[in-house]
């Protein structure tokens, strides 16, 4: 701050506060740091090694088990995250726009259901979702998990984006319509640009939740042919049987978290804006 006009005592308080925060943050950082350090250093000797990262390109042997390289799990996770994020954003934008800007029969009912579904935790419906997927014949496939993931997050993101649409002044839309655009072109050319921050925010939450999702894969996929990073790591760290040693696991965890961390530093600001949807779990 170049021209800090605050009295000296306030700056002193700020410094104390900074110190307290540093003291509180150190344990968290220390734990993370120590954990990920396992990936690079041999347990006993402390020598630097990249041996723990061999799972990136070749099968590795852990105890009695041969673990396939991470490639396929990584690809699946990317596919899952990309498709579910894009679909979620597109679908919620369309629905959010209609609910915010259009007049139609049944609007009140749908708006009301949206408000209730947004609060409703979809996790509780997994047993039912499983049955629906079974009936549709897409249980046990990446596609099945993708559609459930989208559906469970739609109410939340539609709600957010609807609020952004509501916030756009009518005038802008009207002038676009007057200029000879129909609804479609108005929607795609003008309106969508006005809600860019909203789109950024929902896509960020969609990305985070899709990338870390474990529960859906654990319950809806039953073969080993569709691994994603979450299940790939989980298989090696079951409660009764930590199969990978911490060195290998930390290395894998680092690969898994890297995109999240990168994304986190890019989009930190939107995260800060504190969106009412919650980026955790499903």
């Amino acid at each position, binding site marked *: 701050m170049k021209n800090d006009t605050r009295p000296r005592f306030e700056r002193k308080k700020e410094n104390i506060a900074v110190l307290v925060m540093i003291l509180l943050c150190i344990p968290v950082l220390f734990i993370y740091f120590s954990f990920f350090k396992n990936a690079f250093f041999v347990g006993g000797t402390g020598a630097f090694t990249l041996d723990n990262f061999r799972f990136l390109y070749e099968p590795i042997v852990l105890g*009695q*088990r041969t673990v396939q390289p991470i490639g396929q799990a990584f690809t699946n996770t990317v596919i899952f995250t990309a498709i579910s994020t894009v679909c979620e954003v597109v679908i919620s934008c369309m629905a959010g726009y209609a609910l915010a800007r259009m007049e139609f029969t049944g609007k009140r009912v*749908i708006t009301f259901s949206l408000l209730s579904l947004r609060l409703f935790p979809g996790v509780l419906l997994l047993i039912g979702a499983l049955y629906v997927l079974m*009936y*549709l014949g897409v249980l*046990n496939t990446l596609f099945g998990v993708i559609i459930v993931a989208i559906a469970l997050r739609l109410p939340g993101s539609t709600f957010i984006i609807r609020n952004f649409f509501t916030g756009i002044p009518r005038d802008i839309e009207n002038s676009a319509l007057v200029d000879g655009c129909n609804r479609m072109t108005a929607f795609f050319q003008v309106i969508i640009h006005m809600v860019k921050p909203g789109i950024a925010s929902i896509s960020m939450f969609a990305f985070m939740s899709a990338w870390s999702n474990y529960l859906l894969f654990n319950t809806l996929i039953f073969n080993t042919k569709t691994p994603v990073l979450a299940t790939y790591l989980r298989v090696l760290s079951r409660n*009764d*049987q930590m*199969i990978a040693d911490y060195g290998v696991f930390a290395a894998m965890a680092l690969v898994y978290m890297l995109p999240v961390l990168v994304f986190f530093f890019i989009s930190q600001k939107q995260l800060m804006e504190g969106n009412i949807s919650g980026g955790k779990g499903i």
Partner: protein
Amino acid sequence: MKKLLSLLLAAAMAVSALTGCSGDNNSSAGNAGDEVTGTVVLKVAHNMDFVTIPDAVLAAGERLNAKYASEGRDLKIEFETDYSSIDWTEYHNNVIFAQKNGEGPDIFSLDSDVAGFVKANMLLDISDMMTEDFVDGIFTPFMVDGKAYGMPFDLPVRVIYYNKAALKTIGWSDEQIAALPQQMASGEFTWEQFLALCAEVQSKGAAEWGLAHRPGAGNDFLDVMMTLGGEYISEDGKLVFDSEGLQRFFQEIYDNANVTKITPTNLSQMGWPTINKMVGDGTAFAYYGPIYSATYVAGAVEKTPEQFAEDVGFAVFPASQYNSQPFCIAAPQGMGINANTQYPEICKDLFRELYSGESIGQLSHHADTIFTLSSVKAANEMEDIKTNPILKEVGYMADLSISEPNVEGFTTFVTEMHKQIVLLELGQTTPEQAVADLKTQVEINLDADIVVYK
């Protein structure tokens, strides 16, 4: 409003019409196996690490292909494999879900809940395969209502492991050590004496812990209960809730961890690798579990089977003041054929090729790999098994082995029992309380007509 509803309905119907037709419709076609021609793809599912079981099937497939080719038959078997290593319950569900989804495996490994698969109409009756080729009684665990639904691939027994070096440290002579298994098998050396031995080894510092067991739920615990005169399967093949036997068993589990302290209280939180290492390097003097765990134990301390047999001995569950008959339980692993498969005859041919064709060697190779005897008599006569350093010593156990039938509700019983074991060892419940709690859980979770209470 009406419009909205009809729109929603139409949408839902459209979706189901689009996707609904891909359900399970693979059951009827091509039942007359002999007429199948061309390339046939069979799905094989397996769980856990011993892939020598499904690999034996794959190898049998190769042989059959060669045979078909030499006979000039237009038939080629190909395989699509799905090997997992997850909880057995999870695997069990996965197989059923896959079937519901229209993509169930044609041949798959079985867990202990064969009855569950039969109830879900997932298993083909293969009673016609119960031939002289197999060791007597080995089909028992795969029988439901008098029909066989799985083929046993091996004959692993559950035994007691003990560390020979530790005995030497406390002053036993080589002869004494060598004689111990026979004494335990004959009833001379009892379970009570064995527990005292565990305590002695520990107190003399020859091992850090006297007695260890697996970290998760498993049937091994039932062997100890049976040693203590407890019963869990009735004559007519029902699950038994034997309060007295359980009480004795729980008391012992509690005492081992909290009174004599020969078992670590947090054993269940340790995980397999730690426990395997404890047993392998002698940190724990004794252990009970399937003999095939020896592959893991030896692996955990990087020993060859020969070295391992030097250090660790195996014995059957001895007599006790409640049970005069030393025993060991045989728990064969096996595979079944999907009742809905398009190619039942080909699947059966594969099995036949394994137990009576040229592929028997595959079974003996599997048995040799996991340190057990084979389910097929001819395989037990093969070089692999005859020369296995561990199997050499445990061959006599086959005579003392018992096969247990498959009973409904068994998995639930074992899982619930294990929860109590964890609490008992941590000292967070009493044996009396544990029996009462277990009883309530069994009553709630299992239908009254499948359990006998005594």
